[in-house]
């Protein structure tokens, strides 16, 4: 493997790690948001108003399948974080 390929590999690795880290930071922040919500007795009224990434985070946290809003085939099933 030459220097160029090595550097590409390293950068791709760094980018992947950054993306995963960013995803988990968002997840962590949302978890805190949920806890705060419970504290003040708030409920999430609509998942259609939040971004798909948040929906994915919700699905993991709640361990259930949730909908992302209206779509031609019905609900979109999200069971894993694909960040």
């Amino acid at each position, binding site marked *: 493997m*030459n*220097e*160029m*390929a090595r550097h*590409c*590999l390293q*950068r*791709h690795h760094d*980018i992947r790690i950054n993306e995963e880290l960013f995803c988990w930071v968002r997840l962590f922040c949302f978890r805190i948001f949920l806890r705060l919500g419970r504290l003040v007795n708030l409920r999430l009224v609509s998942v259609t108003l939040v971004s798909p990434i948040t929906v994915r985070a919700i699905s993991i946290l709640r361990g259930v399948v949730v909908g992302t809003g209206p779509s031609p085939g019905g609900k979109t099933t999200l069971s894993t974080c694909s960040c």
Partner: protein
Amino acid sequence: MSEEISYTMISLGCPKNRVDTEKIMFVMREANYVFTDDLSEAKVIIINTCAFIESAVEESINTILDYATENSEAFFVVAGCLPLRYGEDARESLPEVDLFLEPKRISDLPKLLNESLKIGPRSRNDKFLKHVNHGSGRILTTPGYAYLRVSDGCDRSCAYCAIPMIRGRMKSEPIEKLENEARELAEKGARELILVAQDLCSYGTDLHIRGGLEKLLERLNGIDSVSWLRLMYLHPNGFPKGLLDVMGTQQKVLPYLDIPIQHISSRVLKDMKRPWRADTIKGLFETIRNTIPGVALRTTVMVGYPTETERDFMELVDFLDYAQIDRVGVFAYSPEEGTDAFELGDRVPSEEKQARVDEIIKVHSEFAQKKNESRIGQIDKAIVEGYSPDTDLLLAGRLWDQAPEIDGNLFITDGLAVSGGIYSVRINEVNGTDFFGEIVG
């Protein structure tokens, strides 16, 4: 007329690469693509890369991946030395890139884009393709000056250098073609033409022109709207005998010579496969200074070559201290795959290389500061490029002995000027390599 599609362009590396960038921008404009500096709205991203040393390769890859991450929807084109050097490896390692473009295919770019972006044929293609194939189509991206690439590639075999491997054997452009290109650049506002090549001294030898550089300068000197001709990258070996005479007679050729010596130790030079000796270099500098009083000399040196000893390095320091060269660029040796020197390994530790770089900078800076300060109060010719990038309260330009990007700037605190104009400037202050002055005529 077809719809307009926006593109953005990044140019990395040397002035020779910039010439290709300007050619790419020209073909894009002629094919109705519209330049934007807003990355998020660009439908096409073009990066013209540099790959002659490892750090340049890294910068190119970082830039490509940063931009690809920022705007993953755009069609991604990578041009320049990276695909030339790494070919198929680059294609495999960078799946984000949609198209790798070699310099010889610049004029085909709109056609390739049209096919890939599935947009209709553009009526202006044939006209500009012919123009570009004759080498004159460029967008001028530099204020008041332009680079004129007189040849590409290199026939020399310096042990550390990857350029011949990337750019191939030297290929000179014919004098007539260069004269036409120079006239077009002058029409676009270039008052200063900077002749660049990997090896300016050998210009025309592949075309069997004797004294090619001198003949070219005589022709360029005849272009009315060009005021300055600057020569960059003259190898110490093969310095044209008639060049100093031409500089004496052709008034537009600036008394500024960039002669990269790389080292002064005969032993290191031999290891570098640069077949000349310390005495040759010293003799050449002496002859130049005796023939052209007041000439500004620039050189580049490399430290940390695998066989460079402390003693060799001190010889270089002593030489620079003695020779008092006006401008010095210094680089740490970088082992490049595929070169002869790569087999020698990277024997000098990075910290030691950096210490040697710092020492050269220190020695040169002390001399340069004194020399620059001695010019306070003098009136010299300068080219004005426009407002200072930092503030509209200052104009920015360069004195005649300052090449763009590498020799510092001139900041003008008083006077009126037009971009590209050449004026007499009184120097009032010096800060490192930068000068401050006022227009007096």
